[in-house]
């Protein structure tokens, strides 16, 4: 190893040591004990499965016919649920989050995809596998988008036009297209937003060929102070493909770049794309906001992420757009999308881990009261993209044990049904587009 590399490694070791020793004091005992108890419970549960099946067969059957383990239960109001956000009136969003990490609780509606009753097709555009549905008709798309990602008012799509016979070798194809794992020469300045694509090359030991892996879309938004919010969305299955990354505003392509990728088949990769959209012009106006996660169409409510009390933890707050005064805040839920007329907002879980992470809630936009909590029974996988079909129903793509479907849930009753037949998807995507925000079908054809 040459001298420059020795310098590099020396500096690397020094920084590793410094960073590892610079972590703040922590007290993990309580959290460890809690998780250990959960592991014990899970093991005991496994040990008693036979007995549980015998005892529970009748009531479970009844419930599963209705599609819910929790069917008939009225969703818990905020003050009765351990994971309910607590409305806080007229207090700064960054200093009032005191509620705890949400946990799986008995009030959540646990979806069992294979048992849900069949309902009507979605009335909004969606993409499932290789078929695009515009709400009225379905069209098979040969060169379907590989994945799409909403980014402010833009929708970016990555799609491939080839999957097959290109041979690969060490030198076949660029390894870091679209700027590579870094965003190349694009240095975001204040109020800039950029999107880039990266891959993580790896080596196949059978033929020593190096191939792209872990393709990822990145977005970065920088506020006027230089503070940046980064979001990533990774996906897989790049197999001998010419990949195009295109940005759309409506039907207009605002940016397009193309590159060749070669990789061995990875047929079981799944991906779900969703993350809050940052609007620097908005979030920098609210003290304590790190990013805006949603704004309602009436321009009355705006939600954003704020810092939590713990290191790296996040809370959220919904503010009145006109006065910028907070209406409520939560350290349990991060609003993602307001309903079409604005009275409700669906939210992703915050500061959770493990199974607790796979949960959505619908909240009252004015008060933060929890009206519906969704989770998926029987890991693995869970809830994907979600959107309101109208103010009373939420559509969510569900991936459960290899079956995909879009599910419709009534917010007030908690009753759910499949809006598309459960099917096994090995390629393509599963997305529901917010009403009015979907790119039109011709853009993909």
């Amino acid at each position, binding site marked *: 190893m040459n001298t420059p590399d020795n310098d590099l490694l020396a*500096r690397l070791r020094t920084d590793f040591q410094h960073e590892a020793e610079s972590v703040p004091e922590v007290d*993990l005992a309580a959290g460890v004990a809690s998780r250990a108890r959960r592991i014990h419970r899970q093991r005991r549960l496994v040990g008693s499965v036979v007995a549980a099946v015998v005892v529970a067969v009748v009531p479970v059957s009844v419930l599963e016919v209705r599609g819910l383990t929790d069917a008939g239960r009225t969703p818990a109001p905020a003050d009765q649920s351990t994971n309910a956000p607590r409305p806080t009136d007229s207090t700064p969003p960054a200093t009032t989050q005191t509620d705890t990490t949400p946990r799986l609780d008995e009030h959540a509606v646990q979806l069992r995809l294979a048992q849900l009753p069949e309902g009507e097709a979605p009335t909004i555009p969606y993409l499932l596998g290789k078929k695009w549905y515009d709400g009225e008709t379905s069209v098979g798309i040969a060169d379907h988008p590989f994945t799409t990602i909403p980014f402010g008012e833009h929708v970016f799509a990555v799609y491939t036009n080839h999957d097959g016979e290109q041979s690969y070798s060490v030198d076949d194809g660029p390894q870091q297209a679209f700027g590579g794992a870094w965003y190349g020469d694009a240095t975001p300045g204040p109020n800039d937003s950029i999107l880039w694509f990266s891959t993580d090359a790896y080596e196949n030991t059978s033929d020593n060929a190096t191939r792209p892996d*872990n393709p990822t879309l990145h977005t970065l938004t920088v506020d006027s102070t230089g503070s940046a919010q980064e979001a990533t969305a990774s996906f897989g299955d790049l197999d001998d493909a010419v990949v195009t990354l295109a940005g759309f505003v409506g039907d207009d392509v605002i940016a397009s770049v193309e590159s060749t990728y070669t990789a061995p088949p990875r047929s079981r990769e799944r991906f779900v794309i969703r993350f809050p959209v940052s609007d620097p012009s908005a979030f920098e106006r609210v003290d304590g906001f790190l990013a805006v996660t949603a704004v309602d169409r009436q321009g009355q409510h705006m939600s954003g992420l704020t810092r939590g009390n713990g290191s790296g933890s996040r809370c959220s707050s919904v503010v009145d757009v006109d006065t910028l005064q907070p209406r409520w805040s939560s350290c349990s839920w991060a609003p993602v999308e307001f309903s079409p007329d604005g009275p409700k907002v669906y939210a992703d879980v915050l500061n959770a881990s493990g199974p607790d992470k796979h949960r959505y809630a619908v909240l009252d936009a004015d008060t933060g009261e929890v009206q519906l909590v969704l989770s998926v029974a029987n890991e693995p996988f869970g809830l994907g993209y979600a959107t309101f079909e109208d103010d009373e129903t939420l559509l969510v793509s569900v991936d459960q044990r290899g079956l995909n479907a879009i599910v419709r849930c009534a917010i007030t009753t908690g009753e759910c049904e499949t809006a598309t037949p459960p099917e096994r998807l090995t390629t393509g995507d599963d997305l529901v587009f917010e009403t009015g925000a979907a790119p039109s079908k011709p853009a993909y054809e």
Partner: protein
Amino acid sequence: MSGELSGVRHASRLSHPSEKRTSMTSDFEEYVAARQRALVGFAYLLTADHHAAEDLVQTALAKAYVRWDKIRERGSAEAYVRKIIVNENASMWRRAWRRKERTTDEPPDRGIDDADPTGHGEMWGYVKQLPPRQRAVLVLRFYEDLTEAQTAESLGCSIGTVKSQTSKALASLRQRVTPATGIGDMS
């Protein structure tokens, strides 16, 4: 490592995990109290995220706790916990559900003007932006001082992958390091 655990071995015997317990036993508590910060530091290098690091360590310690009798008897608590941390971290970046979102307060490419005047953190700022697997390889090779074979075993990959990931990670760092940073001329 054995010295850190010697006190643990002589502590009172744990009850069997299947027995109902409402608090952690004392020798495990001692271990957690003594090692949690170092473990979080290690996990932070792997994740580049304080919250995720604490999460990883909590999970690893919880898993260690339920097997504490066996681990303690073998005197391998530290190695066992670190192994779980590495495995859990690798699982996170492999799992689809880890992919959906991540937010951070820091721009990926922090300017030199923002650097710590002592020089600490410049290289780490670049390491944080490496893909997770490349970062893990660097941490295991140059912080944990594992061999390529040990690193490959820890990450569940081939030695060739460790070599290529190390090479690519160092190449990325060389590209980003400029003479102006004072880290060295890589030409």
